């Protein structure tokens, strides 16, 4: 869901960049030394996830993994996304440097909200796979809504774009929910301490 260079208006780019700066600063403040490897691994996964593509209609979509990232990292998803997207611009020419702020904000913010919902579900005693699936699905849906919102600020009709983006991402929502369920089931087997972490407000 990278927005290309030259599509958005200047004020949308400015708002996106401002949001990204605040988010990254908050994320870095929250980053304790023992969470750094986790941020790195999620960042690497986000960096690679865009390479798994699914063709839908006139366009093609790819895995996002933002909800699962949000579930694992909380606010620290912002710096993880900034690094992943920056490297994608440099190495693959996906998106662009000017839209880096908007892309970071739309993806990270949606992932954090999805992840927070997942954490709420897990901490309320529901099975971890459900939390992972909800986080994965909601993350992608919100990323679509936020992307359509950014495009709407630059002249596109919000409802039309949002419908288009969400329709194209239905397969991704399903796949990400399944991946989220598997990842969470596994993490809870390997790291039971994660339940306690979920109960903490990020």
């Amino acid at each position, binding site marked *: *869901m*990278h*927005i*290309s*260079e*030259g*599509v*958005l208006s200047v004020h949308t780019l400015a708002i996106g960049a401002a949001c990204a700066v605040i988010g990254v600063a908050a994320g870095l403040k929250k*980053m304790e*030394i023992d969470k*750094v*490897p986790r*941020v*790195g*691994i999620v*960042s*690497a*996964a986000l*960096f*690679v*996830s*865009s*390479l*798994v*593509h*699914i*063709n839908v*209609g*006139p*366009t*093609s*979509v*790819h895995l996002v993994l933002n909800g699962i990232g949000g579930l694992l990292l909380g606010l620290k998803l912002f710096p993880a996304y900034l*690094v*992943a997207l920056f*490297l*994608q611009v440099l*190495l*693959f*020419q*996906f*998106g662009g440097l000017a839209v880096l702020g908007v892309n970071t904000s739309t993806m990270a913010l949606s992932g954090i909200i999805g992840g927070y919902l997942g954490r709420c579900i897990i901490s309320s005693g529901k099975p971890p796979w459900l939390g992972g699936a909800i986080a994965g699905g909601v993350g992608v849906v919100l990323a679509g809504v936020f*992307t359509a919102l*950014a*495009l709407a600020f630059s002249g596109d009709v919000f409802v039309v*774009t949002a419908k*288009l*983006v969400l329709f*194209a991402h239905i397969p991704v929502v399903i796949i990400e929910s399944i991946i989220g369920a598997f990842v969470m089931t*596994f*993490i809870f087997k*390997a*790291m039971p301490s994660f339940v306690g972490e979920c109960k903490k407000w990020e």
Partner: protein
Amino acid sequence: MGINIRLKPLIVMAVIIFSTVMCPSVANAHKLNVFAYFENDAVVGEAYFSDGAPARDCDVVIKDLRDDVVICKSHTDKEGKFVISVGASKKGDFLIIVNAGMGHQGQTTISLPAQEDVLTTRAGEKSYFEESKDEDELLHLREEDLLSLMRTAVRSELDPLRNELLQLRKELSSPGFSEIMGGIGYIFGLVGVILWVKGEKKS
């Protein structure tokens, strides 16, 4: 055993990343490439995502680079191809923008040759056909007919080459193994730097 359990998620993540990288069907979707050239008073081109998937039914806009005015609007067909007639009088540099919606946009610049220079004989130069018209009555071809025949012949010769060029560009535009591994390397390096700095502070 405790360490093993802690390492497990990292190992699984690493396996996911590596299998993603190694998987042959993996390709990226997020760069829209535009390939275009000028032919017979028309701009002919193709738009495709960097995994090679065609950009179907997308808006195509041709702009004059000198004054930023939109000259033509059209859209791509089911194979991501487009043919837009711009008229013979157009010349100069033009920007071709393809918008696939959802924030996906790609562009390319082409130079249109001045048609008069190509088609007309220079002043003072006598045409071969004018000279030989009387000599060879069997050859009823007019100059324009012959030129168009030559163009068709040259085009049919060039087409395979053009396709090969397009194929090559498609392959070059998808990220290679070294770029993917390089990116992951940068991230791991960055994690190392942060850990080192934070560790120093702690001690």
